[in-house]
């Protein structure tokens, strides 16, 4: 398995750089480093927020100060100096915010174009509306007008706070309360921007909505907040993509995503996360500490999370669904890949409250190099959840012999009717599988990529088409050299 000739070929491939690792040079509007009530007031003022928002932030901040650092996870990282982070950095613009694309700095448009997310009218991705978030602010949202004719609100969080404060106030923090956990509290205090989606009653969103998150500025944390509301009978499919420049320092990304689905509503949320993972020795990379939760607040509501996590030095996230409405459905489909010194601690929580609620957790963890991959899951069936069902399948694939996979499933059943199934497998890309493919003339690299894609197939088929192709490519790049 460790024949030198193969290492040579793969070694050459490994020299390939993280393609999204460039930095854009721009004038920025940045607040001083550090965190205090004054900084929070400054952020809120810069953003021109109403008073309720500032109060909300300050109360979250005061709560955060009382919270201990979470220590239950398996991820290891040096203490973060929260006073050494810039909490707000925005590309400087002439006015408060660009009113149209003509006012957006061309350098910014070029950046997103380079990342494969063209924003101007001619080159827009067909059938996909994009909100582009650069460091702390949203720079542009496409197809807004077209969507507005259907009553769909798709805009940056900041705009939503200004133009639809009533909706924001009603739903913000209703799924992930400000004091939910350490990083959610921090996010609630300092979040700067993100996406806001509101699909009114009975409307099926005719195109994919997506947000592209880009971290650019040095020493800056990205704290975005996404809120998606689907009213009765509404449906939407939302995609999220992420990249960051290559830097030797670690950068913090602590986001919160809240989904609310009322009666018969359906929200499908897909993520392809490719934050800079750090170099081969584990230097640099993003700390991705994210809280994502959906609330099936109505009967027959359906929330589905699909994620492909290949980036970040550390990933720490558990997209979850609260199945409150009767007959509501929650899904979680995940591929998490760790290579080199990456660590991922990810999984899902399914909280069954309503009757006949159903959930599925399908997790595929791939560990290569010295990567460490942890699945952590909670399935909770409350006493009222008559007829609740859960199926969990959790598969780990190991490539090489220096990586690790851990599984921590927790099941709490408080109703005698519940049916909870859990299946877990761990396999190694066998020498026998590789040899079989190579004996047919297929190269080692192609064989690994074929086997890994086969392993992930059930999850990839949940992704929208363009994303599935992207995800396959990404896995290929992230795995280069991993058989050596």
């Amino acid at each position: 398995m460790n024949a030198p000739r193969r290492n040579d070929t793969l070694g050459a491939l490994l020299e390939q750089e993280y393609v999204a690792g460039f930095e854009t040079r721009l004038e920025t509007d940045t607040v001083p480093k550090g965190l205090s009530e004054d900084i929070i007031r400054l952020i809120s003022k810069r953003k021109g927020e109403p008073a309720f928002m500032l109060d909300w932030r300050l109360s979250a901040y005061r709560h955060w100060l009382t919270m201990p650092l979470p220590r239950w996870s398996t991820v290891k990282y040096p203490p973060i100096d929260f006073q050494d982070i810039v909490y707000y950095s925005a590309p400087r613009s002439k006015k408060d915010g660009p009113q149209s694309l003509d006012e957006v700095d061309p350098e910014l448009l070029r950046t997103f174009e380079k990342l494969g997310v063209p924003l101007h009218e001619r080159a827009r991705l067909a059938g996909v509306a994009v909100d582009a978030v650069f460091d702390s602010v949203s720079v542009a949202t496409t197809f807004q007008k077209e969507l507005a004719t259907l009553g769909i609100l798709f805009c940056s969080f900041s705009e939503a706070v200004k133009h639809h404060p009533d909706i924001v106030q009603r739903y913000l923090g209703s799924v992930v309360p400000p004091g939910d956990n350490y990083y959610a509290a921090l996010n609630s205090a300092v979040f700067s921007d993100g996406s806001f989606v509101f699909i009114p009653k009975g409307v099926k969103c005719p195109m994919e909505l997506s947000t592209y998150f880009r971290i650019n500025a040095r020493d800056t944390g990205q704290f975005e907040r996404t809120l998606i509301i689907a009213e009765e009978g509404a449906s939407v499919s939302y995609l999220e993509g992420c990249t960051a420049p290559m830097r030797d320092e670690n950068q913090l990304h602590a986001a919160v995503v809240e989904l609310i689905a009322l009666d018969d509503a359906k929200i499908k949320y897909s993520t392809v996360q490719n934050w800079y993972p750090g170099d081969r020795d584990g230097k640099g990379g993003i700390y991705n500490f994210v809280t994502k939760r959906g609330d099936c607040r109505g009967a027959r509501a359906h929330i589905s999370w699909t994620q492909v996590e290949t980036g970040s030095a550390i990933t720490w996230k558990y997209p979850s669904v609260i199945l409150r409405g009767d007959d509501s459905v929650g899904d979680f489909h995940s591929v998490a890949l760790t290579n080199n010194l990456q660590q991922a601690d990810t999984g899902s929580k399914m909280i069954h409250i309503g009757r006949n609620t159903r959930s599925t957790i399908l997790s595929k963890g791939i560990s290569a190099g010295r990567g460490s991959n942890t699945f952590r899951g909670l399935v909770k069936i409350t006493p009222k959840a008559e007829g609740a069902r859960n199926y969990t399948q959790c598969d780990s694939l190991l490539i090489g012999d220096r990586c690790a996979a851990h599984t921590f499933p927790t099941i709490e059943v408080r109703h005698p009717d519940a049916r909870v199934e859990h299946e877990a497998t761990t396999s190694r890309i066998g020498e026998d599988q590789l040899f079989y493919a190579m004996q047919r003339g297929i190269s080692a690299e192609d064989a690994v990529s074929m086997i890994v894609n086969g392993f992930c197939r059930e999850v990839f088929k949940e992704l929208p088409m363009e994303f599935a192709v992207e995800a396959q490519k990404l896995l290929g790049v992230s795995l280069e050299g991993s058989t050596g």
Partner: protein
Amino acid sequence: MLTIRNLQVSVSGTAILNGLSLEVKDGEVHAIMGPNGSGKSTLAQVLAGRESFQVDGGSVEWDGHDLLAMPAEARARAGLFLAFQYPVEIPGVSNAYFLKAAVNAVRRHRGLPEFDAMDFLARVKAEMAAVGMKEEFLYRAVNEGFSGGEKKRNEILQMTLLEPRLAVLDETDSGLDIDALKIVADGITRLRSPARSMIVITHYQRLLDYIVPDRVHVLSRGRIVRSGGRELALELEARGYGWIDGADPPAPTPPATGAPS
């Protein structure tokens, strides 16, 4: 032409092949028989390039090349095919995708244009019919949930598609009922050609009722101890492997490569 000289192979310090020599000319079919543990499968895997075996000595020359110096995939592309005794399952990867990737890797190497999906499907469907495989096996994951017989047919199908110059069949007949055995034997017979050599490894004589080999060799303790024509297989069947292993009176003809240790 394949020439194996005094091949010595061990795994984790245990010697398995102890000076095996064999010559297979173009177009010849050689059968290798022997009791369990005699080194038959090791020979097959070493020829195909499996790295978990340690070659301690000897040489293998194939068409003027040092076979042992070639990586496994290079051997495959140059036309060496191994039909596995235990074909490997690859979950999530469709048989069609796997076969096409293999065929095109080999075609690229031979300077032939790659098949597109349409051409490939037309070709593979025709060959599947010949080995009695239903089309649904194209869309199932490689060998996953296949019965023993289906796996072996899939091996023959791959051999047909890859058009090897040297095919090594490792106990392809084991575990097959008589119908499956006939189909497999048929597949092998159809592929016999003056430009293609075959090494057919088998535990039992019965496969040789359908494939008439040019030579039969008996392997014992990592060495070829007897070689002959088809009659050797029949004699072996009648007298059992104990005859070879020395439990019975001394062998009537001296071993080809020295006395057993």
